[in-house]
């Protein structure tokens, strides 16, 4: 996990713990899941870029 995602998870976990509202807690949890999803998507795109740029077809 990258630094930003780790930082986001920590911040959002803290916000979730400090909040009494179930709705807010659910939103903070959803934001944690979103941050993980963003990192995954970014990584997938980066991997695809690397793969296509280094394709043997282009050598």
């Amino acid at each position, binding site marked *: 996990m990258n630094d*930003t*995602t780790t*930082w*986001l998870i920590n*911040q*959002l976990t*803290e*916000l979730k713990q*400090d*909040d009494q*509202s*179930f*709705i*807010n*807690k*659910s*939103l*903070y*949890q*959803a*934001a944690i899941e*979103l*941050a993980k*999803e*963003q*990192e995954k*998507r*970014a990584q997938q*795109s*980066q991997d*695809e*870029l690397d793969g*296509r*740029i280094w394709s043997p077809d282009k050598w």
Partner: protein
Amino acid sequence: MKTLILISHPKFEDSGTQQFLKTSFYSLDDVKYQVIDELYSSSESGQIDVDKEQAAMTDFDRIVFQFPMYWYSSPASLKQFMDDVFTRNYVVANRSLKTKELGIVVTLGDSEADFQAGGKEQFTISELLRPFQAFANKSGMTYLKPFVVNQFGYKDPTEKEQLLVAYLQYLSAEMPLSLENREQWLVARLQATKEGKADDQVQAIDLVINSLEDQQATVESLKQDVKMIRDQEE
């Protein structure tokens, strides 16, 4: 985005699932609701003011029918409401619902997994709800993927958190629910959680929002790069 939820449920106040959903949608300003059963029961004659109900829908972009599945359809009150309010003149001649979206929130006592070919129920939710889809088609509405709440009583707190957010998104997020649309929706909701909080927490939420937006920008930019390279190759 303004949403009207039309709830059909003979015992709305007694339903734990419906009360959970009600508490959830109360957090959204642009969502209004109407319990159809109460509309009929509060009328002495048993008739409703059709003109008023038709006019009430004008303001909304998304109409959501919310009901428990009774014998593979909605409870009778929704059918009654549709027969009374959605006159041919209103729907077909005047195209009054055109450009609106139609969503279905259906609650099940059985597992959703039973609703598939070979499963206990044999038919999918999409098949069983086909009349609503046909109605959306006829009226020029955009039919949204039905939102299924199954076996609410068995859900643990984590599942309830996920359900709550997914339900709120179904009511108020731009469709389809792409990552980008979910991010924009969530950022707007996070802004709303700042209300009543101390300055340091407001700052923390702002920082979180900035980071989520930065990450999303990275995702979108990489997606563009991938598309460009793919297009060049093909």
